[in-house]
């Protein structure tokens, strides 16, 4: 176990670390777009998975820090070298499973810093044992898993990984005949639960997720708003605020600059089309997982589709999926998790809590 850092990562060196005051469990949902934590001291926090390092000495002096995270990093991005260390579920640049390229090394370091920061958000006491479970992308390679564990062990006494969709289902006590759809930024993970640990054949990972919607929205906006200037972060913010599928309750009107002049555009159709683009591949994958399931339980499975992750907040998505499932699968029921941002972290926390003492001790 590495040093058990406090919230600011230091300063506790002078405090005797007797570790006799308690056990802090932490559940972490390490996502491409957001990282969320839930802890057994009641703390819950979420941060955009962004890491920024000052570009030069001047910037560092100005910002008074060596590294910034989340929304704060985004806000000061002009003075920072920015990293979004995870992409499509793995550490960027390590797609081949190695960290040899400079890009992979830099992103690995950023991912480590992000994990340390996420744990510090739980405000652990220096004298408590920290046991954590991290919900990692279902398709993360062994190299990626090792890298995440090594980073977490710098700030935790023991750590375990589990697949993100599994932790969502475990958190809700849905362990049998349930199909979890975790819509993240980089990937949409579908996972079939049948009372045991899901295997490779129980999982499908789609690239059509939050980032894909951003790309689509950008394309549709270029057509719908001729001459308008917008950046990817602006598009992302629009999506987070107005995303929907199905019937729009109100028209969505946005002010975008055209040749420097604010101009109002109706972006309702562009938003609908972009958000709708992830529905067909999802229904196709649901179909694939249902039809290959035990025929006796297929009906139960398609009526227990659990929608989680940031993408599940798209208005009307559950209804749109049910509508397409009626055509493709003859029906089905989709339920949203109550807390899309914390579903994975809450589940990971529950796993950490339920893990027997001797298991934690063997990993300490």
């Amino acid at each position, binding site marked *: 176990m590495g040093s058990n850092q*406090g*919230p*600011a*990562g*230091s*300063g*506790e*060196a*002078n*405090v005797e670390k007797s570790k006799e*005051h*308690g*056990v*802090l*469990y932490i559940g972490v949902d390490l996502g491409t777009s957001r990282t969320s934590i839930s*802890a*057994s*001291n*009641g*703390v819950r926090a979420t941060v955009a998975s962004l890491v920024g390092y000052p570009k030069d*000495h001047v910037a*560092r*002096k100005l910002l*008074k*820090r*060596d590294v910034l995270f989340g929304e704060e990093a985004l806000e000061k991005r002009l003075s920072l070298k920015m990293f979004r260390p995870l992409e499509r579920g793995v550490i960027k640049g390590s797609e081949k499973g190695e960290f040899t390229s400079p890009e992979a090394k830099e992103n690995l370091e950023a991912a480590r810093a992000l994990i340390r920061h996420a744990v510090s958000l*739980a*405000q*652990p*006491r*220096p004298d*408590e*044992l920290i*046991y954590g479970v991290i919900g990692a992308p279902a398709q993360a390679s*062994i190299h990626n*898993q*090792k890298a995440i*564990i*090594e980073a977490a062990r710098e700030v935790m006494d023991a750590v*375990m*990984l*589990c697949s993100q969709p599994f932790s969502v289902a*475990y958190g809700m*006590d849905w*362990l*049998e005949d349930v199909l979890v759809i975790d819509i993240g930024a980089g990937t949409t993970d579908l996972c079939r639960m049948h*009372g*045991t*640990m899901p295997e490779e054949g129980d999982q499908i990972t789609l690239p059509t997720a939050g980032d894909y919607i951003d790309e689509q929205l950008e394309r549709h906006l270029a057509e719908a708003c001729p001459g308008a200037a917008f950046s990817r972060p602006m598009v992302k913010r629009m999506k987070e605020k107005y995303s929907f599928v199905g019937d729009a309750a109100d028209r969505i009107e946005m002010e975008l600059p055209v040749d420097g002049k604010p101009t109002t555009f109706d972006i309702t159709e562009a938003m609908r089309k972009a958000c709708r683009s992830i529905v067909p591949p999802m229904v196709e994958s649901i179909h694939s997982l249902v039809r290959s399931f035990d025929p006796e339980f297929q009906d139960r499975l398609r009526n227990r589709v659990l929608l989680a992750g940031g993408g599940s907040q798209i208005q009307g998505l559950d209804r749109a999926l049910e509508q397409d499932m009626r055509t493709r699968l003859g029906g089905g029921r989709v339920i949203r998790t109550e807390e899309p941002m914390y579903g994975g972290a809450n589940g990971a926390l529950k*796993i950490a*809590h*339920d*893990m*027997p*003492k001797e*298991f*934690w001790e*063997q*990993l300490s």
Partner: protein
Amino acid sequence: MSGADRRSLWGELAAFFRTTSVDKLKSAGVGKVRVIGMDQIARLVEDAVDRVIESRRIELEEREREFIVAEAREELDRLTREVRELTHVRERTMQEAALSQRRVDELRLELQRAGQELEMAQRDVRAGAMGASPEDLNQGLQRLVSEALGEADRAKSERLSARLIAFVSGYVERQREVVREVDPAAGEQIAQLERRMAKLKSRLAQAEDELSRTLSGAQVEPGIASIYRGVQGLDQSSGQFKKKQGLMDVIFQANLKIQKGAE
């Protein structure tokens, strides 16, 4: 809580009070402070005690009451010791921060002085080699040529100026070399100053790092305690106990495999 109890609690806590100014906090990098009133603390203590007693529905006998009071006092003492210890750590850290800040300021001053010295030395060498700046020389030559040839033949005047400037610049550079050879001490002085500046810059960066680390340490808060004192594990009365037990085992085995490999 009675007035006397409140005063007693106030007395216990007063030992940890520390007076500081807003300016001092700002200079230590503290932007925000949390405030809690004495009445709120007293109410919290009172509520907590009431809730515990009520939830357990204890019919307290005198002896039990004394026992609980003694336990509560012991716990308060423990917390008091803990807070005192943390307060000392914080104070030490703040002292270290002040020392680091002073060191950073000194290094900045030294760096500034070295920069000025270097600039002066470079100016001296330039003056020694040319007696005038390259810009002055270029402007002078252009003026002379255009006066000699007049405004009529502007293109010719510009061509001639360019050739003359190239020739004179080459000549001056050769002279500069001569000065360097004749006065190696000047070149050596510049090189030495440059080395000193590089060293000072690196020391300054180190000191600033140290300061930033110390300051972030100064803001360390004791953290929020977990609700658990010991490791929990699956509750036998939990629904699907056997299934969950099996799942925990699978997760553990998979992680053991990764981590044994990683070590």
